[in-house]
């Protein structure tokens, strides 16, 4: 994917979540956002994913500018996938229905087609045995995997993941991260934010360090983790890598 963000600003009340943020990525399959909490990672992802609109600035993804008109944004969300930290699934539907419902109602597939695609997605992520459980009967890791299965059941142009493992214990984290890695190896374009530095290093083509509403540094993972240039990034990494 090719991504260009220019002078993007977004305020919530008096807090400047994004402060004239600019970012240019020529071609990258997996872009990982790291940085301190409250630094603007989530806000940036939300704007990139079409869930929020910047106050000013421009975003262009694969040469297409993201428009601010609600209908255009909805169309944009329809061709991409987005996963939050947790509670992505609709609790009144089974895992299977959670995946099939958007296929039918958003993408216009017939119930039979949607059922077939759902079956395929469930099988792909080894979720068939959980297909008919409600979200409350699934573990956090399983819920996230169903969430991802839903997001990619109809292959999205870009998959956005906002700290997909932050609410999970280490074992579940591993099972979700493995799945994300599989997706990236299968050629899926992904933009994700995470606090898992080892994972970021392993899966990313480009890593962006986001702090105080700006991109402090953007480099390939080996460079950014090996020899960070920005002092902020150095300090952040030395602190999170210590333990």
């Amino acid at each position, binding site marked *: 994917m090719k991504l260009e963000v220019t002078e993007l600003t977004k305020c919530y009340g008096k807090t400047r979540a994004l402060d004239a943020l600019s970012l240019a990525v020529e071609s990258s399959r997996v872009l990982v956002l790291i940085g301190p909490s409250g630094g603007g990672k989530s806000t940036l992802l939300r704007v990139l994913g079409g*869930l929020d609109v910047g106050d000013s600035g421009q975003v262009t993804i694969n040469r297409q500018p993201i428009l601010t008109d609600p209908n255009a944004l909805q169309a944009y969300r329809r061709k991409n996938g*987005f996963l*939050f930290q947790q509670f992505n699934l609709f609790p009144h539907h089974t895992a299977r229905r959670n995946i099939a419902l958007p296929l039918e109602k958003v993408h216009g597939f017939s119930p039979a087609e949607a059922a077939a695609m759902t079956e395929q997605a469930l099988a792909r992520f080894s979720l068939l045995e959980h297909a008919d459980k409600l979200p409350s009967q699934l573990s956090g890791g399983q819920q996230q995997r169903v969430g991802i299965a839903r997001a990619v059941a109809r292959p999205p142009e870009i998959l956005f993941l906002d700290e997909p493992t932050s609410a999970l214990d280490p074992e579940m984290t591993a099972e979700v991260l493995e799945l994300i890695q599989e997706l990236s190896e299968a050629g899926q374009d992904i933009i994700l934010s995470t606090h898992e530095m080892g994972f970021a290093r392993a899966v990313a083509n480009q890593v962006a360090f986001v702090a105080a509403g700006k991109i402090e540094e953007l480099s390939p993972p080996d460079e950014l983790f090996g020899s960070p240039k920005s002092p902020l990034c150095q300090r952040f990494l030395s602190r999170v890598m210590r333990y």
Partner: protein
Amino acid sequence: MSRHHRIANAIVAIALVLGFSWLCTMVFALLGNQTDWSKAWNYRETLFRGWWMTLRISLMALVGSTFFGLLFMFGQRSPLVVVRWTCRAFLEFVRDTPLLVHLLFGYFVIFAPLFSRTLGDQGLDDKLIIGVLLLSVFEGAYLGEILRGGVESIPKTQWESARAVGFSPIQVYRYVIFPQALRRVLPAMAGLFVSLIKDSSLLNVIGVAEYFYNTKNFISRSYAGLEGYVPLALGYLILTLPVAWLSHWLEKRFRHET
């Protein structure tokens, strides 16, 4: 239950039964020889017609109040401030004034002068239609608040997820928010519908020939007492108890589910 509790329980139960029997005996002793159930039997057709009318009013107002409830709920969630405030003010007014006043004022001052003749010319019962409309608005105001509470109780992440999978604003409500919100508010809604059935008796003030109205006429014509009031209470219970049971059943069922 401990032994002391069991004994106390038994004593209170006996006391209550004795008290109630004493009250009944006194009442029947006073009225005993005047109570003549054949009076009610003679008026059975009028009474049944009234009861049937109450059932019809209740069903129509149930549909009507659902419509107004949704309208008020969406009105209060409108992006336009003017709409929100108008809705808020109207709801506050409706909820803080008696239904009796709405019926009298709404019928005699507002709607009857405007529509009675038109409705009458088309062979429609203007009192019934206007009465149901006013009752629907009144109960709809409460329902609107119940629905708003339900919709607002759905966590923000559900709205976000629904948007993220690409649902349109209408689909967000239809497939994600309403199914969850309704589960939460169904018991409260059933309780409101019980009130609606009982409140329909007030339509007698504008002359709708419903159950209370017909019973009242029967009582004043035949000097009946118990013969009128007992069937009156029973008639309403037949309508309200199923709804109340439904409400308790729903409450229990959804408590276990969440």
